[in-house]
């Protein structure tokens, strides 16, 4: 699988800084270093999980890949095209190959549009279908996500959260994309509904040969759905590995702490010892020098403040950014 040909998306040294303006003349006084130099690739047909706590830059990463934000620097290669260098019109054409599923199924569907219009809109914009063809295609898509095609004339408020998320999935699939960025697609749903959506996403992946970037903070769900997992902390990726490798032998101290914090639904196992991190995540406006995690790290040494740890391959396909890992 690590064959170079299989790479569908390659992100190199991507940075996304949001400027902060102050004063009467709106001078730039600083920047939020939301994403600060990350590199990874996504391979055709796989699911790459991207995990981290709120504010670590995982959603910004997803949005910057799709050029919803103008990246500060770096490159995003999609099948040999650098998306960052594309002009607006060219990028619009590219978008049909990469779609997004959003977190909040209540906010991401226009309440004044019928389901037919919502799912049909991408088809219309990209001139893929028109008129009656659209309704036919919408009916197919609704069936694909296990909703009754007769619902096409209804409005979003008539559906429950899980059903709305299915509509969001159908819209993302309308243009037969290759890559779907799922930005916390299940975190707004009830537990019993989450499993329904995850099973649907897995089934569609097999059927349509999709590639997912699955952004989430629920580490157990990410282990379930992903092939490989990347862990983010304060704008940087600290570790990437195959999921079982990452969950069974995490190397970065942050990954270790994060995994030990996840509660396990088993009273006997919950007696295990936890690594409790002290304090909170520092501000991305003024991140710590050197290693981002050093202010909360139990292993921190002087070198961690001086030098940013290199993101290196320590075992085949297991990358980590830490001075303390041999």
């Amino acid at each position, binding site marked *: 699988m690590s064959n170079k040909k299989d790479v569908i998306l390659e992100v190199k040294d991507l940075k996304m800084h949001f400027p902060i303006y102050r004063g009467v003349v709106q001078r730039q006084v600083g920047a939020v270093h939301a994403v600060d130099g990350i590199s990874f690739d996504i391979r055709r047909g796989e699911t790459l999980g991207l995990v981290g706590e709120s504010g670590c830059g995982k959603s910004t990463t997803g949005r910057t890949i799709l050029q919803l934000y103008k990246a500060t620097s770096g490159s995003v290669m999609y099948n040999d095209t650098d998306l960052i260098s594309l002009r607006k019109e060219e990028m619009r054409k590219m978008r049909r190959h990469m779609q997004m599923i959003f977190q909040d199924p209540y906010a991401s569907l226009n309440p004044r549009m019928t389901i037919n219009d919502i799912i049909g809109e991408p088809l219309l914009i990209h001139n893929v279908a028109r008129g009656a063809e659209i309704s036919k295609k919408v009916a197919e898509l609704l069936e694909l996500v296990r909703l009754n095609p007769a619902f096409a004339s209804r409005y979003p408020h008539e559906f429950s959260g899980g059903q709305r998320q299915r509509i969001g999935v159908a819209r993302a699939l309308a243009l037969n994309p290759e890559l779907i960025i799922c930005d916390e697609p299940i975190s707004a749903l009830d*537990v019993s509904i989450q499993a*329904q959506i995850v*099973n649907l996403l897995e089934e569609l992946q097999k059927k349509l040969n999709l590639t997912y970037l699955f952004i989430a*903070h629920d*580490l157990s769900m990410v*282990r379930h759905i992903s092939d490989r997992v990347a862990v983010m902390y304060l704008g940087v990726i600290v570790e990437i590995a195959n999921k079982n490798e990452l969950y069974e032998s995490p190397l970065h101290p942050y990954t270790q702490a994060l995994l030990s*914090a996840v509660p396990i*639904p088993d009273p006997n196992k*919950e007696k295990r010892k936890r690594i409790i991190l002290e304090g909170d995540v520092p501000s991305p406006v003024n991140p710590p020098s050197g290693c981002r995690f050093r202010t909360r790290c139990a292993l921190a040494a002087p070198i961690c403040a001086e030098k940013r740890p290199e993101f290196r391959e320590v075992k085949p396909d297991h990358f980590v950014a830490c001075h303390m890992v041999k």
Partner: protein
Amino acid sequence: MPAPLLDVQGLETQFKTPEGVIHAVNGVSFTMAESETLGVVGESGCGKSVTMLSMLRLIPMPPGKVVAGKAFFRGQDLLAMPAEEIRQVRGAQIAMVFQDPMTSLNPVITIGKQMEEPLALHMGMNKQEAKDRSVELLEMVGIPNAKDRLGDYPHQFSGGMRQRVMIAMALSCNPQILIADEPTTALDVTIQAQITDLVKRLRDELGMGIIWITHDLGVIAGLAQRVIVMYGGFIIEEAEVKDLYAHPTHPYTVGLLGSLPRLDAKQDEKLFSIDGFPPVLYNTPTACPFAPRCKWVKDICWKKNPLLEEVSPNHRVACWVDIKTGSARK
């Protein structure tokens, strides 16, 4: 046997809405012993929060109404006592911590003022005493430089720190029961671990009873002694924590546990999912509320709602079917 600390009997709460009456809580009974930690689990809209709010008479009336039931706290019925008396109980003997620490703190009043208020009100402390006690409480929940932070406003604290402040406030009058309503849901996992750790330590130090409401079966596993599972405004299963996770008996509990991927296991198989959607509570339920989503469903499930009955010692279930055999229970 000593009288339980809390004894809720047949609690029913309804809300009048333009679309009809919502039957949010439909006859909930449970007890709680001194210093016990009770977990209440269920999905949104299952009635877990409304049960606690009804008990403390915090349901806005109208549109809400507690239509039946009793809630004895140390032998006194909270639902029958005069408004003046329940005010003495709320915040003092029974305290609550809510899910979202930003909306439950007043943004324009300093943390110090907000902390001193219940101390003055319930404990009759003067200004200096209340201030000293506030510092003590903030230190107890692990807020650094507590003395200097009394003058800060809620927005100057992070989410986890705000939740610590909320816990400090709830504990300020030495409550016998702390009701925590999804206190870690809005927090990141590492901060959640900090808060649950803190609550466990405080429970051991102070010996109060805790009712921990959550939808997360993982958090409860490490915290509670006994767990109540709610669905559609009913308690559908109740058991000791180990018993519940080892032998879930209600089809809903089985489904809920099965739909959780586990961090500690390689998972390549499909997740067990519960089909369908949570119930809409417009009608008085005459059938089992879970029947439309249940794979063990029998004829009787559509006709009569099962009562919560003991199936093994200290394990109560409301279900007509024995899921081990798949046939109706005797």
